[in-house]
């Protein structure tokens, strides 16, 4: 369960979030809708710990996480722009979260293979992101976020390429999953 309470975030004179509260139950798939510039990404960045809110609290599974650094939150984050590690192969990109946590190499191998199969990139494991096609590249950055076994939730700020809801300038999906 992710809970944001009265989040205020200002950038200089501009108030991006003005007392936003949202509850996201565990196991749900939630979408935040709003025109571009309305603060969707900022809210997700606050939840992930990439921005500090000026006011308000973030709690994860009932524990106050407002001051926790991003690496201790276990919140996965898919960046709006393409953000794979350019100097690493597809394999190393996917394995990153597990290698950082010093998982046994057998587990890493098995998990990475599974995930690469899931997004149909198995044969391309040795390539660098720059050597992938646009579509392949789009599938890549989303995987490592789901890969680390402690990750309890994943936030995606990907703007849908197609218009998801008519009349909606942009939509952002926010997915919650259990490990």
């Amino acid at each position, binding site marked *: 369960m992710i809970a944001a309470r009265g989040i205020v975030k200002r950038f200089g004179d501009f108030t991006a979030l003005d007392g936003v509260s949202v509850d996201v139950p565990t196991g749900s798939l939630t979408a935040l809708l709003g025109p571009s510039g309305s603060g969707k990404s900022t809210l997700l960045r606050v939840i*992930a*710990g*990439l921005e500090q809110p000026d006011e308000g609290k973030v709690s994860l599974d009932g524990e106050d996480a407002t001051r926790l*650094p*991003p*690496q201790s*939150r*276990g*919140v*996965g*984050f898919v*960046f709006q*722009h393409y*953000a794979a*590690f*350019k*100097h690493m192969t597809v394999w190393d990109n996917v394995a*990153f*979260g597990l290698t*950082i*946590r010093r998982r046994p190499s057998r587990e890493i191998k098995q998990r990475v293979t599974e995930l690469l199969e899931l997004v149909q990139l198995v044969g391309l494991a040795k390539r*660098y992101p*720059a*050597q992938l096609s646009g579509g392949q590249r789009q599938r890549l*950055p989303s995987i*490592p*976020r789901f890969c*680390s076994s*402690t990750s309890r939730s994943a936030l995606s700020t990907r703007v849908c390429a197609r218009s998801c809801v008519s009349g909606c300038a942009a939509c952002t999906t926010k997915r919650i999953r259990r490990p």
Partner: protein
Amino acid sequence: MIAKYALRFVSLGYLAVLLVAPIGFVFWQTFEHGVGPAWDTVATPDALHALKVTLILTAIAVPANTIFGVLCALAIVRHRYPGAGIVNAVVDLPLALSPVVVGLALLVLYGRGGWLGGHGIVFALPGMVLATIFVSLPFVVREVVPVLREIGTEQEQVAATLGASAFQTFRRVTWPAIRWATLYGVVLTTARALGEFGAVSVVSGRLAGQTESLTLYVQDRYQSFDNTGAYAAAVLLALLALATLLLMTRLKPNEGVQ
């Protein structure tokens, strides 16, 4: 067509006249009477000692400025704090100041009657090390800062959300991105440290066989009308610089991407 050849002619001619000709002339003068005499002048105790001093200065200044340079670049680009702009400007000071001024400043600070004087720093190796570090300080910072700005913080944030600590993020994400910039900065630092004359000249006291670096030795030989000795030592300096450049091209692998 004419423009293309004119451009080539101008650029190559410029390089030839201003860079290649003087250096080529030194090489030619050195080996005018064969390798033997040149070798003999380089193999004298004073020359060898000067070479040793230069290598010691470089071996201390380059690692120090590399580590400091990377840390300083991170402090300039990645942290917002009051005074960051001042740090950024102060780093360029050694480029703007004449090395002679640097040498004098060190004399005033560490010399006889100076604030921190009387510890055997001036007219000895420590003072020369300080002078060399001072003048070769900006290069790693200046190479790394623009690369850090360009890569942005997104990849580092990705690493953080995946559970990487600050050090892990640096080692696995930031460092690979700034590696070649750092290496290039190291080469420039090395070249500057090897070739430093002014500041070292002021603080060294120029005692032959004791506080004489290779550049000082070259001038010493030249003023003693020992042209062969001066040219041979100059060639030695040039070869050291060339070796540094070659080492860099060797170390840098041919990466398929990037």
